[in-house]
């Protein structure tokens, strides 16, 4: 593998090499921009999920407190 790599022609530093490098870098940048935008979108989804989970947990806690503090029903009076 290494010998194959060393035998390969190096990127020529002429006009052609400059444009080829430019084109491949543009493609890489485009993909990076896309991934960055998707990353931001996923971060928004994550924070939304966290918020929803907090609301759900708070409601669960409130329901538990309400259940423990609810006054017991009066005992049936036998006649």
């Amino acid at each position, binding site marked *: 593998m290494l010998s*194959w*790599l060393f035998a*390969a*022609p190096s*990127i*020529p530093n*002429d*006009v*052609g*090499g*400059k*444009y*080829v490098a*430019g*084109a*491949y870098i*543009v*493609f890489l940048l*485009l993909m990076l921009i*896309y991934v960055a935008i*998707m990353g931001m*979108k*996923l971060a928004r*989804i994550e924070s*939304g*999920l966290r918020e*929803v989970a907090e*609301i*759900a947990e708070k*409601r669960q806690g409130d329901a538990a407190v309400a259940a423990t503090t609810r006054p017991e029903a009066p005992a049936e009076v036998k006649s």
Partner: protein
Amino acid sequence: MYGKGLRTLSIATVVAFAVTLSLVFFYAPIEADQGFLQKIFYLHVPLAIISLCGFIVGGIFAVLHLRRDDPRYDAYSYVSIHISVIFAVGALITGSIWAKGSWGHWWVWNEPTLVSFLIVFLLYATYYPFRYAIEDRQRQARYASVFAITAGAFVPLNFLAVRASASLVHPRVFATAEGGLPASMMLTFLCSIASMALLWTTLVKFELSAKSAQGQLKRLRRALDAPNTQATSRIAPEVS
């Protein structure tokens, strides 16, 4: 749901790109006429081909959406077009760089291949404002599907018209009387097409899973809001 198999697909894409780039820079011969500059061909042409195919795929999903009235197909159509537009941007920029290196100009307005691709790109660039100008979700999906079908049908027609026209400077590599590419270049090119198609599929799946997650989150929010609404309606005075 859409994330299933995404990991395998991503690994396959990375491996395919590694192999393709190795073939491009270490295996494919230097072209006699353009020299090293021709290496842009293995990036620019697959980007253009896959973006055009993606537009057609978007049209096919739009047909399925209209036939089956399933919102999933609308999402597939939207995401296919979205990723294809990104690929088209890549094809336009890399093509422009290649044109500058090869012809000395960033853009040649009297070249049918370039201008027709720009027209297709601009056509699909109007898809977003067209889609989001409609507020009603069902109407939005229906109209977007009609647009995707019409524009998708325009893509092969446009391609054939350009092939039939006389080219001024843009090369015609495939199906030419001269015989096209030599075997080593053809193999490299086919690998580039395959890896670009894999990348397209991975990004479509990635985008779909993100959209699905967003949709699930909205559903959760609605479900959490629902008990509050019921409570409000319970305390509201009843009108008999």
